[in-house]
């Protein structure tokens, strides 16, 4: 549009002071018009607002004119000579009533901060309780499905096995391989000082089988699949799909949670096994490079030093971690409320909590094994 920018000024006429406005009072010039209106003298003697020269007006402009004439703020100046085609709009804006503005958040004080900390602690406690309750519900749902296996979602299970297991093989394998390499490298380097570089094999074998294989796998899976569970279920929550399931008499616990948890219980041990292999393999490669021995000698020695117990110590943790990761993922997904932002927030939370719980439980397992002296 090629209108004159809007203007407003105070003029003297025979019968007193008059505010005159003209040009285009549109959102295009809103910033400038706002400034002009604000710089008008507050207590002017103007009796009337003359709008003869207005040639375009929109709601923003009408609002500013209303402000200029003091509408809604006590002292009101009548309008005159507004072109008839602009009348309906002006009326709409003027009859919309006194001004309202959305509340702006007030500045934060130290008390707010303290209150936040308190609320945070309270939330953590409530969250832990809810998670335990959720686990209880999950056990009940599992019981119902075991009693009536036809209710189990086999297709969903297979899909999740593929997504969380098969698709995760490359990344889990690569990470474990590299960690095996690093372990062997650091170990050989230090042990050489005691002329005991052959002990590198013991070190790699024990740390990979007991801790590294399972821990790395669980962390990768928490980041990869725990987050995916939250995002999937959370998005369904936003679009009211979960509510739709409920109204059809389907239990989200059975339809959404159970297949995911079962899938992880199946895939996490397999991934861990794979990670163990790759870790030992990586360690072996590095060992045979650094220490004057062949890969074959490494395997023979490995065979002597590792025991099935070491393998099983790592392996028994896998299903437990699987349940933790999958439950937290689904739990946070179901707690998503209405917005896209909430999906993001809960996904972050699922990953952090998943990894945190995995490490806590890993520590608990260590205590348990030392009591049992395994």
């Amino acid at each position, binding site marked *: 549009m090629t209108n004159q920018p809007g203007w407003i000024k105070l003029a003297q006429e025979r019968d007193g002071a008059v505010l005159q406005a003209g040009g285009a009072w*549109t*959102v295009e010039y*809103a*910033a400038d018009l*706002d400034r002009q209106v604000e710089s008008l003298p507050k207590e002017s003697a103007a009796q009337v607002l003359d709008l003869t020269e207005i040639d375009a*007006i*929109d*709601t*923003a402009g009408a*609002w*500013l004119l209303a*402000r200029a004439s003091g509408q809604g703020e006590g002292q009101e100046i009548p309008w005159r000579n507004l072109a008839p*085609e*602009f*009348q*309906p*709009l*002006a*009326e*709409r*804006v003027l009859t*919309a*009533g006194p*001004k*309202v*503005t*959305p*509340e*702006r958040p007030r500045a934060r004080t130290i008390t707010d901060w303290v209150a936040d900390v308190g609320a945070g602690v309270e939330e953590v406690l409530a969250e832990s309780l809810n998670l335990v309750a959720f686990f209880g519900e999950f056990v009940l749902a599992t019981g119902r499905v075991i009693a009536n296996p036809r209710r189990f979602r086999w297709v969903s299970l297979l899909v999740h096995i593929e997504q969380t297991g098969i698709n995760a093989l490359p990344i889990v394998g690569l990470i474990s391989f590299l960690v095996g390499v690093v372990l062997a490298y650091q170990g050989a380097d230090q042990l050489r000082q005691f002329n005991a570089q052959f002990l590198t094999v013991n070190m790699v074998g024990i740390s990979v089988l007991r801790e590294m294989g399972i821990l790395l796998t669980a962390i990768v899976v928490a980041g990869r699949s725990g987050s995916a569970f939250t995002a999937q279920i959370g998005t369904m929550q*936003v679009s009211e799909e979960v509510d739709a399931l409920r109204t059809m008499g389907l239990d989200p616990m059975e339809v959404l949670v159970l297949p995911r948890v079962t899938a992880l219980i199946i895939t996490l041990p397999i991934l861990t096994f794979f990670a163990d292999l790759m870790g030992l393999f990586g360690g072996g490669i590095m060992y045979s490079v650094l220490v004057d021995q062949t890969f074959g000698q490494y395997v023979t020695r490995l065979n002597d030093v590792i025991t099935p117990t070491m393998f099983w110590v790592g392996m028994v943790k896998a299903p437990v971690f699987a349940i933790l990761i999958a439950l937290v993922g689904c739990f946070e997904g179901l707690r998503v*409320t*209405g*917005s*896209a*932002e*909430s999906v993001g927030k809960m996904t972050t939370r699922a990953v952090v909590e998943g990894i945190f719980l995995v490490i806590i439980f890993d520590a608990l397992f260590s205590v348990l094994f030392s009591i049992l002296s395994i």
Partner: protein
Amino acid sequence: MAERSANIIEIRGLVNRFGEQVLHDGLDLDIRRGEVLGVVGGSGSGKSVLLRTIIGLNRSTAGDIRVLGQLTRELDDEALRRLQTRWGVLFQNGALFSSLTVAENIQAPMRERGDIPPELVDELAGLKVKLVGLPIDAMAKYPSQLSGGMKKRVGLARALALDPEILFLDEPTAGLDPIGAADFDQLIRSLQQSLGLTVVMITHDLDSLVTICDRIAVLVDKKVKVGTLEELMRDPHPWVQSYFHGPRARAAGIAAD
């Protein structure tokens, strides 16, 4: 200037195809400056797709679309963005930003402009909320806390945020109670008259068609038939006949019993 021509939107030979499904086939449509055009057609006949094509969200298979004198197909991103600030869109399902409050949703387009003072943005948002007939206490709510009809109103308020020249509405009155819908019609009419707005309105609401539409475009057989209500009522096409002479049309007082 070319934009001063009587037609604000010109569509020539528009073809839209999704796989095997042909939605529009050689569709021509002129929309005049300052009119309220109602778009009707069966469910799935491609009304929403037509709208999305005009506003550049859907790339047509073939055909030319001129909006405000500019051929949208040939515009670069920058020019398209500038053009987009000159129209407002109300989507069929509201498409509100779920992580923003009602007030923030309405303010979003004004904020994007960057030059409007924050206090004025706040005041204008308050004004828009009242203009579309929302209760003031809705301003602090999030879209997930609103009823379906309220979401429509917020969508309209957001579409009107920058006082656009063209307003595209996809079923604005669906989900509103009859009084609210009539109010909505009046609101659109008065805004249109005072602002010289051009309104393109997809609707199934026969009352809206009667009360506020200057002309009606009927999407049948992958093309449009345009005319005033009287002209279309005389159209022999069977779908058009049953649309404007059906029981609901009679109830709305369009057709005589």
